[in-house]
């Protein structure tokens, strides 16, 4: 049914008025922005404050305690920025995985029929949500990890695991030339096996008959790499942690700064995720649970096959925002000396160059980009799992 359109001039049309107002607002904001930028640039040059992004190419000259991409004191400030960014990504990614695992366990636990489990989970959530994160970061780092013995009195399980106040050391696999063949063999083996598995699934769905393929698994996933290992004469070596000089060297080292930050971020964020999971599960209609019971599904199976998949639609959007908070919260790293983006770039580099406006704009742009990517990934997942016809 078409509405009869009022006959009056187009500029009195509320739709046009709306657009015009918004355009005006946009122009005004842009003008203010330009004016601010113009002012800032003029003022900075009058006061002899360097500006522009040329500093990114200058030599940094300082050391960083955790470097996962090539970096030395001779590298540039720009390279230091990447080192900090990678460190932020590492601590965020590991914490996202851990907090999700803990969060799901605790969230499901809160709905457990077991009184003790349910109460313990409630205490977990209520306690951790109500203590400021910075305090928790400082607690795990200074209160727990720094009370471990020093390098010379390390807690050690042979040379397999060494634990002291510097961090955790485990043997590290060293890839010699030729190791790529073994890795390739493993990848091919896995790919072929999954293709085979998919084929079997499809065949079963079509014909109801499932071919026996279990024999293929050890052959492809173990046999093929083993053959490559034999051909290349074991191109791997283990680097063992050893006490040398002041501390342990060799092996894979997880610094106590990374460990402390990861533990604090994971445990803290998990409390929020637990509540999101609980809300998601509660949102699933009671009938679904009863139907699952009627089918004779045990509780675990009912959760896995019926309840959680439906709860995920409620869980995903707030979960995404928890991931975003976690990434931003990782900037508390600076309190405990973990060299993340903020500590290295908006901390040390800013102080060496004094270019606050450039560095903080860049830092904020990077966090914005991280947030947008996280949101986009979670939206993709959400769309893939939305109810058909409702998405």
């Amino acid at each position, binding site marked *: 049914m078409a509405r009869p359109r009022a006959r009056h001039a187009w500029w009195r049309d509320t739709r046009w008025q709306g657009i015009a107002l918004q355009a005006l607002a946009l122009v005004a904001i842009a003008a203010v922005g330009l004016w*601010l930028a113009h*002012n*800032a640039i*003029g*003022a*900075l040059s*009058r*006061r*002899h*404050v*360097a500006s522009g992004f040329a500093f990114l190419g200058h030599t940094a*000259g*300082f*050391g*960083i*305690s955790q470097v996962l991409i090539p970096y030395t*004191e001779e590298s540039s400030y720009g390279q230091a920025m990447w080192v900090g960014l990678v460190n932020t990504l590492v601590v965020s990614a590991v914490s996202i995985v851990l907090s999700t695992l803990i969060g799901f366990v605790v969230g499901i636990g809160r709905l457990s029929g077991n009184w003790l489990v349910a109460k313990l989970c409630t205490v977990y959530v209520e306690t951790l949500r109500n203590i400021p994160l910075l305090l928790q970061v*400082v607690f795990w780092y*200074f209160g727990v990890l*720094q*009370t471990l013995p*020093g390098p010379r009195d390390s807690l050690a399980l042979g040379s397999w695991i060494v634990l002291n*106040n*510097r961090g955790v050391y485990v043997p590290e696999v060293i890839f010699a030339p030729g190791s790529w063949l073994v890795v390739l063999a493993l990848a091919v083996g896995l790919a072929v096996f999954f293709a085979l598995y998919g084929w079997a699934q499809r065949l079963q769905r079509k014909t109801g008959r499932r071919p026996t393929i279990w024999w293929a698994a050890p052959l492809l996933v173990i046999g093929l790499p083993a053959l490559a290992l034999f051909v290349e004469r074991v191109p791997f070596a283990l680097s063992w942690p050893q006490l*040398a*000089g*002041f*501390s342990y*060297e060799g092996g894979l080292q997880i610094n*106590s*700064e990374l460990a402390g930050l990861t533990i604090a971020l994971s445990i803290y964020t998990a409390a929020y995720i637990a509540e999101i999971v609980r809300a998601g599960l509660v949102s699933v209609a009671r009938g679904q649970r009863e139907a699952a019971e009627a089918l004779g599904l045990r509780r675990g199976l009912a959760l896995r096959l019926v309840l959680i998949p439906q709860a995920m639609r409620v869980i995903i959007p707030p979960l995404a925002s928890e991931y975003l908070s976690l990434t931003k919260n990782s*900037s508390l790293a*600076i*309190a*405990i*000396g973990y*060299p993340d983006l*903020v*500590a290295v770039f*908006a*901390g*040390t580099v*800013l*102080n*060496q*160059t*004094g270019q*606050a*406006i450039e560095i*903080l*704009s860049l*830092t*904020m742009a990077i966090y914005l980009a991280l947030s947008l990517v996280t949101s986009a990934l979670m939206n993709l997942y959400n769309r893939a799992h939305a109810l058909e016809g409702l998405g």
Partner: protein
Amino acid sequence: MKLRLFFLGLVAALALASTAQAGTLDNVRKNGFLRCGVSEGQPGFSNPDQRGNWTGIDVDYCRAVAVAIFNDPNKVRFVPVSFAERFTALQAGQFDILSHNTTWTMDRDVAQGLEFIGVDFYDGQGFMVRKSLGVNSALKLDGATLCTQTGTTSELNAADFFRAHKLKYKILVYQKASEYIAAYDAGRCDAATTDRSGLAGDRLKLKNPADHILLPETISKEPLGPAVRHGDQQWGDLCRWTLFALVNAEELGVNSRNVDAQLNSTSPEIRRLLGKEGAFGQELGLANDWAYRIVKRLGNYGEIYERGVGLNTPLKLPRGLNNLWNKGGIMYAPPIR
């Protein structure tokens, strides 16, 4: 917190445009007090006691400027600011002087919009280690882990030193003095590194100060001094000559106890310092007896030094380089004439 810093940055850019014309001295007079940016707690330099009174060399210097302007050492508001935020905060106009154990470096002076007005403490970077480590030289720190604070020249100097001597090291950088000291005390690092005067103060905060020693090496020059915003010549002159007046007073033997008697001195140098001859104070925009007031209320440089970090303080720092040029040190001020 970093947003705060960003905000400061923006304010700095804007504030610069507006304050470039108005003189800092006029603003200070209008406010009725001086705003002085100091460290958040550095024994001997700027440290609040239990009653909230600030003491130390950096603090006394700001009081001297306040006396020069207002004839009242209490007309100062101390603004504690972190190492990382201090320069941006000065630019943003959060205070009129930065008196914050700040090393005078070329980049800071030339490219960061600062104007260093002199040196009130000659320092150098050192290392502190546990005695039990059995290390007696920084050259034996190969493979060591160091702790320091962010926003200082220490990070760069340590890197230079270890690179120059082809030694391996790891450096952990904490945001606050309390955090870096806690990490060192817990044994997270083998050595703490910063300016020697800072280490002397930080050692007092450890559980067992006697278990720690400063290594003999001084690996850098750290001329510490106050700074103001670049571009206000009058303000820079006033702050610079306040510092020089303190040093000149010591050299001329004028101190807080004898300054009244010295008013009758026949020495032309003393007469010019105390405003009996010439119009040096007026040329700075102050009363002619500005230096008399400063010495009368706060003493000369030597008195400020002894009160802050001298042998009768917990820091027990000998004068060393900070002695007058004619007494074996390098503390030297241009003459008032």
